């Protein structure tokens, strides 16, 4: 995830931040390695959701279909999910 960041002259004077900035400032830019889930091997045990310190891993449900998803806008690439995954289906991929 490489977002378009503001130029120096597009930023407000004096590094002003407003309320609800957690929705705007995507801290996922800190990441060097990105966790990628291999869904064919994932058992949907939810262990990664519990361990993620952010937390930015969630279960996406559509109908009877469930899928573990990572929110890359906030994932910092700490690698805890990959380390803790009991079936080792998460790879850390350099961005």
């Amino acid at each position, binding site marked *: 995830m490489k977002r378009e960041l*503001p130029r120096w002259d597009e930023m407000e*004077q*004096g*590094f*002003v*931040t407003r309320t609800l900035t957690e929705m705007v400032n995507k801290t996922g830019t*800190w990441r060097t390695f990105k966790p990628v889930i291999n869904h064919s091997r994932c058992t949907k045990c939810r262990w990664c959701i519990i361990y993620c310190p952010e937390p930015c891993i969630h279960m996406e449900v559509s109908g009877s279909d469930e899928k573990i998803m990572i929110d890359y806008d906030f994932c910092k690439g700490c690698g805890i999910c990959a380390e803790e995954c009991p079936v080792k289906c998460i790879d850390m991929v350099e961005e």
Partner: protein
Amino acid sequence: MKTVEPILLSGNLAAAYAIKQLDVDVVAAYPITPQTTIIEKISEYVADGELDANFMLVESEHSAISSCLSAASAGARVFTSTSSQGLLLMHEILFITSALRLPVVMAVANRSVSAPINIWCDHGDIMPQRDVGWIQLFAESAQEAYDKLIQAYRISEDPRVRLPVMVNADGIILSHTYEPVFPLEDSEVASFAPWKLYPLRLDPENPLTMGAFGYPEYYFETRYQSAKALEDSIGIISEVDEKFGEISGRKYGAVSPFRCEDADVILISMGSISETIRATVRKLREKGEKVGMMSLKLFRPFPFKEMMGLVKDAKAVGVVDRALSPGAIVGPVFNDITSALYLSKMSVPCVNFFTGLGGRDVRMADVRDMFEKLKEVAKTGVAKEHRFYVGLRG
């Protein structure tokens, strides 16, 4: 121009008088010689009801500048003043003030730094503040300190600038010497530097955070933004100086040259020492010597473009530094000037004079010695030595 009656004021009292006319809202300060009489007088104005301000006598200079920063971020017009160790104690907050783009104005009565303890003038306190991102103006007289403070608020609060400003006046020499000062009318000051509420401020109705955590993706741009504002402020500083000239008949320029036009040798200086050098140039010119001088009135942003045209025909240039820069090959002012010369592809030989430290008197005889050295360099076209410690024993 109408006639104005002068008032007898010291540099410090002239500064306090300006602050009263500028109708500041918050003054936070801690006493330190030679600045003390500025805030002493302001506290009198407040106590007597002549100035409607919140006067905060805080427990240190660190708190003084922090209080000013906070009050400015809420939209107040603020003032503080310090010297020497006090300025050093403010150091870390100075960077924050400029990066947050807060219009804080401070008067500095320049004084040496310890050790040994010494309350007299030199530029040892201001040189460590070179990179804090503040606009730094230098006065040569009490009149100029008064004028520059009024200019400072207009510059600082200009939406194109929004940077803190320091007005430097040499401690003791200017701070405590009385001279006739021609003030402006209160109404003239009010219309020249009117206070305006800035939209980006701490306001419960429209909440925002200043100076929060800046990720690596934002830090560089934020610091560049304030550095660029400082660089670009040079045009606005001269515009304000120009406008001030229209109402007062006094304008100073970023550099103030004297007899440079056909001079073989030029001496560049900053602060009250320039008065002595100007007087010496006048004397030497009477004898037909082709000498000139230039007083640097604006140190940050550094007015190199304004300066280069003036020295282009000189055969030797001398720079007076009233502070040491231990371990560096030259003094701080010399450093800037020679960098500017190099980048302008000018190869005039330059000599650095260190003098006037800790209040040591610099007399016309000392200035004549400096000009003699410069004339030798001009004759040969080479500076064999580039540093001279004028008046140092041994």
